[in-house]
């Protein structure tokens, strides 16, 4: 089968260059390729185009750093039924469910045609999330526990339905969609690129930098402008600072959930220090406003660079102490080890990404496999991989990534100080009006702290962005959480949940 072969740094692809293949061929080839864990699907979506439906698929090849792009079409009068790929490779389930929900296309043999996020303009509005039929099991010794959609504490809505035998969880079903805001709809509705960038930052509040970077990557590929290497470095620094902050926050949250107060308060303080560093740089603790297309409003200065380096070194030093404390506490190890295990083959089957996949022995890290920006030039990233797949493995991956990110930030700032500390910044101001290539597809693939983020922007013949299709890593990894708690005690669900810390709004869009 023919693909358009590209990579994560190449320019936008004209839509006519993307091969259109018959679905049968597409089905057969993907069924074969996905059996090898070196391939996984980054995005698969449908878009109406001149009276027909065109399906785009981005397939990542981790071994060669290639991105394979293919498409298939469905004409207006075609029967809206396709053989399901999910039946063979479960990793495609969120994509097929999304396509089915939006456009009413049925996937024949789909094991579980469950709505994904109940958008307001969905094809079939007969069902709603209020009367969603949860999976049930019968048995005298079984009981169901429903948690949510409204939770205690300040977290987002999502319903968890447990089927338990005593304290043991047999099955967990996660129902999401409560946080659906129509983000993709808004992207298409506004032509204002600044507004679109702000929207990208709001896809998942804890991954503002990563989503904004993915979107601007796509935009810059469409405009075809060269950007100064320093801009890439600044984006890299922002991304790694975000990663540090969130991984530290989750270390603290995990400590809190097992009642380990010292770890909790130490990590809360360090996380505040990290996000305050970002605030001192750009005025926003979560890095909103920092990533802009073609330039930046907050170029680094010598003082800011020195401040960030100083803070990051201090955070890394203190965090390392916390990490050692956790590793040497028997009461913590007893909670985290052998808890919430997701084996490698299951993780591969559901297409898990990011730090959760790396904790299960699946070395998926776009910084290494599909590098962009600084990772293609200055940093050769070595992914942190653990094989146990339990809560402790996910925590260890977090811990080591924090220290790794601290080193990257320091290195990138060192380059900056050597080159530009005395002179003016080489980064231009943002440009929101740069003309974009017409009728093209461009994608931004960025490894956020949670995992791979994919934005696919598509332009019309006038060069306007008509669709930005977003994939947050949570889309894949929610299923990993459901698998992790199987057979565990229900009281261990919270720490399993925290060890993934998935996004509700990133999933629900």
């Amino acid at each position, binding site marked *: 089968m023919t693909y358009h072969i590209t990579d994560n740094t190449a320019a936008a692809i004209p839509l006519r260059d993307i091969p259109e293949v018959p679905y049968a061929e597409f089905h057969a080839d993907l069924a074969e390729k996905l059996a090898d864990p070196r391939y996984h699907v980054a995005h698969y979506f449908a878009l109406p185009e001149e009276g027909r439906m065109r399906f785009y698929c981005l397939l990542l090849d981790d071994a060669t750093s290639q991105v394979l792009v293919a498409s298939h079409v469905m004409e207006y009068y075609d029967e809206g039924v396709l053989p399901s790929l999910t039946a063979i490779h479960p990793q495609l389930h969120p994509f097929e469910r999304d396509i089915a929900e939006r456009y009413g296309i049925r996937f024949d043999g789909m094991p579980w045609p469950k709505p994904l996020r109940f958008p307001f303009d969905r094809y079939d509005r007969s069902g709603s999330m209020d009367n969603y039929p949860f999976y049930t099991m019968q048995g005298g010794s079984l*009981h*169901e*526990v*429903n*948690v949510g959609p409204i939770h*205690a*504490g300040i977290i987002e809505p999502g319903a968890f339905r447990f089927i338990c035998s005593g*304290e043991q969880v047999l099955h967990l079903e996660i129902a999401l969609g409560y946080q659906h805001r129509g983000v993709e709809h808004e992207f298409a509705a506004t032509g204002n690129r600044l507004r679109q960038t702000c929207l990208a930052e709001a896809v998942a509040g804890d991954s503002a930098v990563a989503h904004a970077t993915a979107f601007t990557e796509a935009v810059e590929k469409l405009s075809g402008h060269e950007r100064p290497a320093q801009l890439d470095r600044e984006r890299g620094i922002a991304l790694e600072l975000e990663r540090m902050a969130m991984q530290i926050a989750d270390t603290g949250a995990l*400590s809190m*959930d*097992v*009642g*380990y*107060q*010292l770890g909790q*308060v130490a990590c809360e303080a360090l996380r505040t220090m990290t996000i305050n560093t970002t605030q001192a740089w750009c005025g926003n603790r979560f890095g909103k406003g920092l990533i802009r297309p073609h330039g930046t409003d907050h170029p680094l200065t010598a003082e800011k660079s020195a401040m960030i380096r100083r803070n990051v070194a201090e955070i890394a030093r203190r965090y390392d102490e916390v990490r050692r404390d956790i590793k040497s*506490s028997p*009461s*913590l190890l*007893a*909670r985290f080890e052998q*808890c919430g295990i997701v084996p490698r083959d299951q993780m591969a089957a559901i297409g898990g990404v990011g730090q959760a996949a790396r904790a299960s022995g699946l070395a998926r890290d776009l910084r290494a496999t599909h590098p962009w920006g600084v990772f293609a030039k200055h940093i050769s990233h070595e992914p942190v991989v653990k094989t146990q797949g339990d809560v402790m493995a996910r925590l260890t991956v977090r811990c080591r990534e924090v220290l790794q990110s601290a080193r990257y930030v320091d290195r990138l700032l060192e380059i900056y100080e050597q080159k530009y500390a005395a002179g003016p910044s080489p980064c231009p101001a943002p440009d929101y009006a740069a003309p974009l290539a017409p009728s093209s597809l461009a994608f931004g693939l960025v490894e956020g702290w949670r995992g791979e983020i994919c934005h696919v922007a598509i332009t019309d013949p006038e060069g306007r962005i008509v669709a930005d299709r977003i994939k947050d890593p949570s889309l894949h990894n929610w299923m990993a959480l459901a698998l992790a708690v199987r057979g565990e*005690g*229900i*009281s*261990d*669900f*919270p720490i399993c949940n925290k060890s993934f810390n998935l996004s509700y709004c990133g999933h629900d869009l």
Partner: protein
Amino acid sequence: MKALNLLLLLLAALAIPGLINRTRARLAGRKGIRFLQHLYDVRLLLRKGAVYSTTTSALFRLAPSFYLGAALTALLFIPVGDLPPVLSFDGDLVAFAYTLALGRVALVLAALDTGSPFEGMGASREALYGALAEPALLLILATLALVTGFTSFGWIFSLAPELRFTVVLLLAAYVLVKLVFTESGRVPVDDPRTHLELTMIHEVMCLDYCGTDLAYIKIAGWLKTAALSMLAADAAVAAWGLRWWIAAPAAVLLTGLSVGIVESTQARNKLVRNTTFILTVAVLAALVFFTGYLLQLNLVIR
């Protein structure tokens, strides 16, 4: 003297939660809330009205008062050092243990009455751990009775025991402190600070309570903790032949500091491990009992 005894117990009950909070805050490098913040919280709750779920019956409304009554009654049996307790009769050891159990039963039934799956889980856990902790408590009380020859708290602690029982009394105090952890739902058995319903034991049973009822449950919790802490302090103090003015502050310090330190530095158990934890305490209690028994035989080894 009985009034002084009761007064000291109530003061201990009010001081222990404050000291726990203060210890935890200091170990976390924080200033911490006011020492008597828990009293302000309860005053706030007492001023509030109550909302009852329509699925609950009178049982649900009675349970908090019953729980508080049971805790208060149990407290009346406890002497502070060598002071005489308010209520005292032969066999009040057993009455004490089962008055506490009665309060627990009331709360468990009320939790089941709500029909909520969370509360059902909490009730099942509370019942299991209560049943497992009961032998430990009874064995320790039996040991006290055995080494002193009395079955009433008032008499047990009124006289300085013989020197050879020092070790037994200290071990009994240790087991009683462990029981304070389990019975008052502290780390490592339960975590009173958690907001995660799925992991709660005691707290989840009180989720449907508010206002006065919740205040009653909280106060009953303090009283229960104070009663067991005072017993532990009594045993330790008796081992050294000390008097009530040591026993009262010892009870506060023993529980306040140990709970505060453990909650700051240790994670709570995986829930299935709680069973092991409590059974270990029970086994320890059995060992203490046999040690006491052997010493009481007064064997002379030639």
